[in-house]
């Protein structure tokens, strides 16, 4: 019995600490494990006994690449307990903040984490030796995303300006205007990015995922929407626990999520795009078409094109939001705590991020549940490996390993995020 094991002890160009183990027996893929050994930090446990006002600052520290996503899911969930809904300029500012994070995160992934795989480089520093202009382009694009976060959030990593009800300080319009020229240039770079990545060589491989994302009327989703799938799911955010469950497996500190009564599912740019491509800006739609994307995309290798299209959209949307921005009278609406439970889901760059909190009448947190997109995607990522690797077994170990890493990086896993959240149910045996 010939057994071949492909191992990567520490995955590079993913956020956080993960490893790959692919087991092949008799030329059949027996098992694929994305082993998450990122040390667990127990956020849901440590949030108990903290004030709800501290939540945005604490949950930001779940992830250095997507802190805004955690802040957004948290404040929306807690505000729903207080019965507060943001409209107008404050709602727009939160979308603008998210645009900044999408631009920063997607540019980082496309240029520095994913593109090197397609071009045969160890990383972007290597890539810069032959393609310095391209790497500079990616860095310039990422920088604009960070500049939005700095102006609106105070700083790019762990922004300080997000609070319950809005912001500690609303920006003056004149503070946002210098971003306009930068965003226009970024938008040009984003278009160039779509055209560049569309020319990569892609495996013609698809899987019939159940794609899950937010969807709401009139906008590509950031902070609001119902949870929908391409297999007929259409639920309010509060019903998430009824339709999704988590389990704890031995090889991963990140819990795995499944559809109740169903299997794995996929969230993230492919899902968002496939379920909302009609809501993109005209320019983004045009570029998607030019790049050969149909209204739906289930080829995970082409996710790099989808992220590039979302980069174009985020620049467009940020420009629209700044142009229409009117300074609000107050930087935040008043929120009063009361005992209760609140849920929210928002679209992090990597996919849908679900939060649920229970607080007491004084606003102290009693329970917290945080389900990041990467943990939701883990079973699908592993199934990708099991499925695709079967067609690559003729390759030597090194090449096979690289292919497997690429297959993982397709999904831009954010492992520090994925490693600390709360069970919903007792695990099945």
């Amino acid at each position, binding site marked *: 019995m010939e057994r071949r094991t492909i191992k990567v002890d520490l*995955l*590079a*160009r993913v*956020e*956080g600490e993960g490893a790959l183990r692919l087991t092949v027996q008799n030329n059949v893929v027996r098992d694929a494990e994305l082993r998450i050994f*990122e*040390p*667990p*930090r*127990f*956020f*849901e*446990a*440590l949030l*108990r006994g*903290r*004030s709800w006002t501290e939540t945005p*600052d*604490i949950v930001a*520290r779940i*992830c*250095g*690449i997507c*802190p805004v996503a955690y802040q957004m899911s948290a404040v929306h969930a807690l505000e729903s307990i207080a019965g507060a809904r943001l409209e107008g300029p404050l709602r727009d500012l939160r979308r603008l903040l998210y645009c900044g994070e999408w631009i920063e995160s997607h540019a*980082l992934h496309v240029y*520095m*984490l994913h593109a*090197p795989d397609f071009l045969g480089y*160890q*990383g*972007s*520093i*290597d890539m*810069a030796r032959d393609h*310095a202009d391209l790497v500079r382009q990616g*860095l*310039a694009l*990422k*920088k604009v995303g*960070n500049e939005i976060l700095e102006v609106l959030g*105070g*700083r790019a*990593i*762990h922004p*300080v*300006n997000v609070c319950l009800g809005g*912001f*500690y*300080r609303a920006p003056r319009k004149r503070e946002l205007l210098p971003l306009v020229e930068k965003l226009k240039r970024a938008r040009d770079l984003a278009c160039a990015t779509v055209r560049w990545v569309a020319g990569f060589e892609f495996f013609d491989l698809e899987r019939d995922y159940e794609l899950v994302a937010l969807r709401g009327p009139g906008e590509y989703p950031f902070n609001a929407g119902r949870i929908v799938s391409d297999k007929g799911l259409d639920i309010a955010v509060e019903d998430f626990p009824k339709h999704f469950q988590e389990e*704890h*497996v*031995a090889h991963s*500190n990140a819990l795995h999520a499944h559809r109740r009564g169903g299997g794995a599912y996929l969230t993230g740019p492919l899902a968002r795009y496939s379920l909302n491509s009609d809501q993109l800006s005209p320019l983004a739609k045009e570029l998607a078409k030019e790049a050969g994307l149909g209204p739906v995309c289930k080829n995970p290798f082409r996710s790099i094109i989808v992220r590039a299209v979302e980069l174009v959209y985020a620049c467009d949307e940020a420009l629209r939001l700044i142009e229409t921005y009117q300074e609000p009278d107050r*930087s935040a609406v008043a929120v009063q705590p009361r005992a209760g439970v609140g849920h929210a889901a928002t679209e992090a760059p990597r996919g849908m991020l679900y939060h649920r909190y229970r607080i007491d009448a004084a606003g102290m947190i009693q329970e917290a549940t945080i389900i990041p997109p990467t943990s939701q995607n883990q079973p699908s990522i592993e199934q990708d490996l099991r499925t695709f690797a079967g067609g690559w077994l003729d390759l030597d170990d090194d090449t096979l390993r690289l292919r497997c*890493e690429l297959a993982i990086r397709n999904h831009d896993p954010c492992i*520090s995020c994925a490693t600390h959240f*709360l*069970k919903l149910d*007792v*695990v099945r045996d």
Partner: protein
Amino acid sequence: MATAPHKPRLAVFKFSSCDGCQLSLLDCEDELLEVAGAVDIAYFPEATRGDLHGTYDLALVEGSITTTHDAARIHQVRRQSRRLVTIGACATAGGIQALRNFKDVNEFIRVVYARPEYIDTLATSTPISQHIKVDFELRGCPINKKQLLEVINACVAGRQPNTPPHSVCHECKLRGTTCVMVSSGTACLGPVTHAGCGAVCPAYNRGCYGCFGPMETPNTASLSRSLRAFGLSEDALQRLYRTFNPEAKPFRAESERHGA
């Protein structure tokens, strides 16, 4: 001054953390390629595939120690590094995950994971300096990317980094920000917190929450008396000192003087 005979080898190591401090290096968009020219970025898994081998002239260590595996690994990192610099609150003071140090971690595990036996974790989250000798600490949650460049620059030039340990108040006053404590009665840890962030929170109408850890000679007892007079409860005061730098001695000690 003549250039160094060889490009210094840089390595970036991650322990228990959110990755934000490493990301600060990638956020030096204007300077990154210049850094790559001045140092050999020899090991940086976030950015590049590559193997761990040889000795590194400068090791940047992010994250705290929370597992037996990592408690062993850090010694290996020390052996491989000429100069070892811890970056960020997790590495320098335990990070937010060090809140477990004040609770029962087994209960934490049970709350989060259905199969506790699958989890290898220590009861504590400890700063790197509790395990090995550290040559320099760069504070922050996250660190300030300009200060990171300063640390790299200092290493290349053979001098000490210039990262003043005085209070955040200096940065507020240089910016021209009006003190939120004095003008609005807002609780602020600026007077006892290490500078480096540029006093961002008061510029956004909120009090400093101490994410850069204690300044050089913090008088937390005196500040706490004022904050109590502002109306902060004992519980709120304890939580204020117990956030991202719980194992920083002056903050830990002050947090233990308060509580419900």
